[in-house]
Each structure stands twice: as C-alpha cells, then as structure tokens.
C-alpha cells in the first residue's frame, strides 16, 4: 500500500492540473482458484493482483486511469494526465486532512483462506465431487471449483476520506452433468460468503453437491417447458435474480442519473404491487456481497428501495450523486483497480410477505414453478429482462406435477413488479457474480417464494 504523503501528492497533482475532486484507490488482492473435473485436480491458479486507480471529477465529468507500476514518478505522471484531461478548474492551495478513524469490521474472519493449506481445500472439493457423483447413476461428470480471495483496499480522496478495508470471500461451485438416452443436462449450485475457510463448517458440502446433482438428474429426461404467457411461481433464494435483473439494475444511479432508466424521476411513486418491498444491504455480516466501505470509501448501509410498492430509494455512487444532486448511498463497487467504480447492488432482496410457499402453489390452477433460477440480464433503458430457469415443474390444479426444462422468462421489469400478486414468508438468499460496466462483483440475490400473475415463458410449442 502507498504511504500518506505519496497519496497526498497524487491527489494534489490531479487537482493542480485540473478538476475539483480526486481519488486514489490502491488494491492488493491474493486469489486462489482450484478446478476439479473427473475427480482430479486439473488446475490450481494463484493470482496476485495489485494496482492503483486514480480518478478525477470536474463537475459531472469523470476521468479514470490505472496503472500497476507503483513508482512515485509514474504515479504522479498518471495523476498529471488525469488532471490535464479535466483541465479547466485549478485548485492550487490544497490542505488535505484525512479522516483516519478506523471502521469497525462487521465481517469477522476466523480462518483466513491463505493460512489454510491448499490440501484442506482439495479435501472439501473431493467430498463435494463424491457426493454429487454418487447422487444418481445418471450423473456422468462433476466439476467442482474452489474460489477464494483476500482483497485489501485503501481509498483516499480530496474530501479527506481515508478508508481501508479487507474483503475476504470464499465460494464453492458445483456443476453436475447428467446423461440419459443421449440427452445431457447440467445442474449448478454455488454457495459463497464473505468468510474465511470456516465457511465449510457452516455449510453442508455434501448437501450442496447433491443440490447440483438433483437439478441435472431431474432435468435430463424432463419434457421441454410449455411456451407462452402463464402464471409463474418463483422459489426463494436465487429466485431473487428476477428482482435483481428486472428492477435492481434500473435503480442504479449509473442509468438513473442519465435518465436512462424507466424508474428515473419516480421517487415516491407507486411502481410495484403493494405486496412488494425490497432492500439492498451491504452490511449483513459475512454475506457474499457485503463490505465495510464501498469502493469510494463511503461506509455501506442498508438501503430501502421499494416500500409497499412505492419507490423510495436508488443505489448511488459519488459521480451518480453529483449528476442527480443526491448523496451517495455507499453503493460504489468495482471488480478491481482496472475499473472505475459505479453504483452497483450488493445483497439485494425482496422482504417477506404473508403466505406459506405451499399456499401459493395450492392457489395456482395452472402455471410454472421455477425452483432453481439460472442467470439473467437486462437492458435498463428499456426494462427488457430475460433469465433462465434451471429447474422447473408444471403446476396443475394447485399441485406440482412434472419436471420441465429449457424455460426462459422474459418481460419488462416495470411491468413484472406490478404483477407480483403473492409473496411468501420464506426469505432466503443465493449467490451470484454480477457483471456490469465496473466489472464482475460478488452479489447476493434473494426473496421469499413469489408468484407473478403473468409472464412470457420461452419454451417449446407442442
């Protein structure tokens, strides 16, 4: 990490040549990725990532530069280029007084992954492999990945922010492949947390592997999902990807500030069904998307986004805040120093409602039960989203009947949240990696079981 006087020099250089705000982001990240296929460790990678991001603002204009040559001369020349690109305003008398108070770490780590022998990690992976492989004779191949990282960041800016944070994450990912009658299907499950190796005392590795195997085995002989508009019940945990894609991205300042979101200018208005409330909360201890401070050094907080159907908040970073005339909500994130930060979700979920999941199924005459969701994507400016259902069943006369595969759900986010008509009481969260303009970041999605009264299901026609 860089010392305070050099950081002051960098910030001072940006402001001397131009701009009214300067920020330095320093990162050291140690990462391990291990891959197991066919019961054998195929690859083990260790990555040491380190670099510096320098950013300047002038009004609503932003310039970003990064480098991983840490020499003073180079850093000051990069800072000068940033300042010159901003050019117009010059602040010559800068006195910087960093607010050096230590933040309380809410995400206590017991076993730093780098302190645990890699062979211990491999033991966990092989246990997952055996469990998935033995789940059913249909399972023909299993892949297991172990991913951990330990990221230290230092963020300082011309407003006196000085923040240091250490983010430790660990994740196990299991991909099971079933084969039957020439058909192949896969099932995936990937639990992760902001924890050290103690994650594996908290989760049942064998159960996690069985979950991936179950999806593959049930889906391999399933009929194609029906096509067309129908009611869809979306299960809890990773089911929350529907809110993440359909609504969450469109609440990020990145698109709201430009007016490029269907939710721009709608604060205080009713945008969703009354049974829908949702939050983004990066403060949940040891959750996958949590951090003590965001990537601009702003302490993270719980942000209520939708309250009983009414839009009450956006996710805002500093630049978005300047453009919107609003404060940062501690939502700036980036994959690493090679990306300028922007507003992103952390742990986002729909709050619990009144129904038991069984009641929701029993109240549905015909429709699709989406038990395990895959990923999805959205175009925030049109609200068009799509996402894949990895494990699905038909609902007929209030009962789950047969498995169906290959369903994709599409629609427009602002329409879908008005069509949620039943919300369960079983909130759970699932883990994903969210990709957007500031790179791939760990994010939790979550919800209770919900029903959408009508949605287009992309399946096959009879």
């Amino acid at each position, binding site marked *: 990490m860089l010392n305070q006087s050099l950081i002051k020099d960098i910030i001072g250089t940006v402001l001397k040549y131009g701009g009214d705000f300067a920020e330095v982001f320093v990162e050291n990240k140690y990462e391990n990725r291990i891959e197991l296929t066919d019961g054998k*460790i*195929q690859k083990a990678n260790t990555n040491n990532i380190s670099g510096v991001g320098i950013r300047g603002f002038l009004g609503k*204009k932003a310039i970003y530069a990064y480098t991983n040559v840490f020499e003073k001369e180079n850093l000051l020349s990069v800072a000068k280029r940033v300042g010159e690109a901003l050019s117009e305003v010059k602040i010559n008398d800068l006195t910087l007084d960093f607010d050096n108070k230590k933040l309380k770490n809410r995400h206590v780590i017991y076993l730093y992954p780098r302190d645990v022998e890699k062979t211990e990690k491999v033991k966990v992976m092989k246990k997952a492999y055996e469990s998935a492989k033995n789940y059913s004779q249909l399972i023909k191949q299993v892949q297991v990945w172990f991913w951990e990282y330990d990221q230290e960041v230092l963020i300082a800016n011309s407003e006196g922010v000085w923040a240091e944070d250490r983010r430790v994450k660990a994740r196990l990912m299991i991909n099971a492949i079933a*084969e039957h009658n020439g058909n192949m299907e896969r099932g995936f499950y990937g639990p992760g947390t902001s924890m050290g190796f103690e994650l594996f005392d908290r989760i049942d590795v064998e159960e996690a592997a069985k979950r991936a195997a179950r999806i593959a085995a049930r889906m391999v002989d399933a009929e194609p*999902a029906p096509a067309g*508009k129908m009611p869809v019940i979306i299960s809890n945990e990773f089911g929350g990807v529907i809110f993440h894609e359909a609504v969450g991205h469109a609440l990020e300042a990145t698109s709201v500030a430009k007016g490029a979101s269907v939710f721009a200018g709608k604060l205080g208005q009713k945008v969703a069904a009354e049974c829908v409330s949702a939050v983004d909360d990066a403060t949940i201890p040891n959750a996958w998307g949590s951090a003590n401070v965001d990537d601009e050094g702003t302490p993270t907080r719980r942000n209520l986004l939708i309250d009983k159907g009414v839009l009450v908040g956006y996710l805002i970073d500093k630049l978005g805040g300047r453009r919107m005339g609003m404060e940062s909500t501690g939502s700036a994130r980036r994959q690493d120093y*090679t990306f300028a930060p922007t507003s992103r979700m952390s742990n986002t979920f729909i709050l619990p409602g009144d129904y038991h999941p069984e009641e929701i199924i029993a109240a549905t005459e015909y429709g699709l039960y989406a038990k395990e969701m895959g990923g999805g*994507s959205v175009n925030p400016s049109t609200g068009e989203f799509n996402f894949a259902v990895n494990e699905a069943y038909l609902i007929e006369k209030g009962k789950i009947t047969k498995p169906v595969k290959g369903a994709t759900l599409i629609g427009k986010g602002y329409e879908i949240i008005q069509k949620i008509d039943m919300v369960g009481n079983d909130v759970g969260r699932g883990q994903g990696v969210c990709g957007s303009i500031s790179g791939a970041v760990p994010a939790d999605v979550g919800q209770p079981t919900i029903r959408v009264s009508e949605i*287009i299901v992309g399946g096959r*026609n009879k």
Partner: protein
Amino acid sequence: MTYNEFKEKLFSIAKEKGFEAQIDLSESSEFSLRYANDDIDQYTDASKFSVSIKILKDGKIGRVYTEQLENPEKLFEEALKNWELTDSEDEEFFYDGTGKYIEMDLYNGSFEKTSVSEKIEFVKKLYNSAKCDDRIVMVPYAMYNNFKVSKKISNTLGLDVSTTADGGYSYAMAVSKDESTHSGLWMEVGTKFSDLDPEKIGKTACQNALSLLGAKSVKSGKYRVIIKNTAFEDMLSLLISMISAENVQKNMSPLKGKQNQKIASTILNIKDVPYYKNSISNRPFDDEGVPTKETPIIENGILKSFLYDLKTAKKDNTEPTGNSLGGSIRPINLLVESGEYDFENLLKKLDDGIVIIGVDGMHSGANPISGNFSLGARGFRVINGEISHPIEQITISGNFLQLFEKVEAVGNDSKIFYGIITPSILISELDIAGE
C-alpha cells in the same frame, strides 16, 4: 527488478529444483471514451502489465500469476504448491518454439497517433449521429475504445516469441419510444482509426432503434426464421464451447464422438482462421506459444475437427491447433463462410416468417452441454418476402445442433465481430414463444 532479471532468476530456480518453466509477459494499454447526456461520461487512460508463470515436471503444471516483478523465489514456491495439488492424469507439455509461425503485422499505430481531441470529436459525432431522429429519446452511451497489447512468451525449452497488436472498436445504443421503449445497437471494429466511421455507427444504431417502433409480440408457434449476423454472432458462443477438445474429452460436449459425421446442413461451412483482414483478434501464436493455423471445423455439414491445445492434442494423438487462449480452448477468428444470398434475396427465400436481429441471455439461457437454448429476441415479421412490422417480447428456443441441420440458406452479408465473422442464415423452422 527488470523483466529479464526476473525471468532469468525464475528459470534458474526452476532448473535447480528439476522443473521446466515458462513465463508469459503481457503489457496492455487502453484508452476509452464514453459519451452520454451531451458530455463525456467516462474517460479512461490506462496501462498495466502482468506475468503468468507455469512450472512443469512429470507432466504436471503449477501456475501463478502476478502483477509485480518481484520475489521470484516466493512465486516459485506458490507455483510449486499448486503443482503438488494437481493430480490430473492428463499429461501437460511446453512447446519448444520450433514450428513455423505465420508472419502477420498486427500493429498499425494509428490509434496512438490520433490525438485525444480527435477522439473526443469522434464520440461527439457518434453520439449526435445516434440521435438521428426526434423519436430517439435517449442515447444511453456512445463508446470509443482502442487498445494495444504486447505479448512475450519464453520457456526453458527455448521458446521465445513475441508480438504486438493494436485495434479499436466503437458502439452506440439509441432508444426510441412510443408506448414503450426500444433499443438499437451497433458496433464496429477497426485495425486503424480511419476504419471506424462514427456517423455510420451512430446512424445504424439510431435506425435500428427506430425500426422497432410499434413492435409487438407474435403468437407462439413454429416459424421460418432468418437469424441475422448480429444475432447469430452471439449464438455462436455455444459452438465455441462445443468444439473445445477439452470439453469433448471431459464428456461435456454434445459433439463428442461425432467427428466425420454429418451434423449440419451441407451448405454450412465453418472454420477457424488465425488471420482475417480487418479483424482485431488475429494471432500468430496462442498462449502456449504454439503457431496458429487454419482449422476446418464444419465442411459441407460434416464435423471435421475440434480445436486443441498441447495437452488435449496429445491425448487424442493429433497435432495442437494453436487455440489455447486465456486459460481455455477458443477459436482465434471463428469464420462462418459466406453463402450466395444477399439480404433481400434471403428475405424472398424466407417468404413467410421472422427475422431475428438480436438475442438476449446467451450466458444464461443457452446450455453448452445439451445445446439447448431459450433466448429473449427481437426482429421483424416477414410476409411475402417483405418486412411487415417489428417484433419484440418473444423468445426463440431450440437445440443448437438441430438448428444447424435446418440451415436452408446462407447470406453473403458477413460482418466482423470480436473473434467471430459471420453472415446471416435462414433456418427452416424454429420455436417462437410470445402471446
């Protein structure tokens, strides 16, 4: 520590411990501008370098990656730990660099020579061109990017190759509005600054957004379909995963065991080419230092070859194809050969059906193991060989290999994307879900 000092130190530690070693240095820089709301929205000017190290003994590899040229001893130890963990039965190799490399000049230098103010003018023009009509309510972004990458791979067997490449790309999105909003996107790549025409890119994005005004869904059913190059480009990522010899050998490709069999319509020809004029992904050697070469994949509908790195080639008792890229096996330029139909004639041949211009959700709604896909889509209804009206809020679904069998005609409108070159194709039948 200089790069050479670092490399020599690492090689000597490896030799001492009875290992071969390989080091891959990559230095890259990028410049990008994003324009939105009548101003520069993001400006990035950056550079970095990285070093990938592999050590080899007993057919096993240990890997470590770093962004600082320091502590080769510690990095070797880390690689050694990873080497110890690996228990794969597949034998790994290094390449000695004795093969013949195709000479290609991949560095033009025009992007570096172009001034920042010219690039700012470029994105302004791009942005304004994307607003070509009053019905465009927004241009969420107009993007310009250029890059330069230098790569150098050396190992203790004598491999020592290097290359420098530059390139650029630009894209814009425009949004039009009636009762709902519709987006239009266009992107082009260039090997020199003058290849990129901001007015053309912006205008095309604009016209694409306008063309969807009045779009509605269609009745679910089976339709004849043209998949435009802009949509087929996205869908071809499924094929990329299926032709990787690694996925085939690990029983994760539906093409396993189908070599020399007919898997597609006889008019379909697909190959991987290391060099294609105006492409920005050309490569003389892959990430193992192996020379790249032309590899036929599908010839007249018959599956000819998979793509190989050193390890998978040895396992199948064949030659590596030079396709080890970024830690997996990928094509350099996946090329779908042009057919005889221009787009107007393709429409006539379609007669009654749907043109798909874009798909959403490839990373989630398409399954490379089964080949099944179900994707959000948009395009146009075609009646009597003419475009009748725009369509959105539909999905297309099917199996990628069945789709290959149903190719009825191939267009001559080839377009270069990043690493993929493809024309539009006509499919005799595809499942569409809508109303």
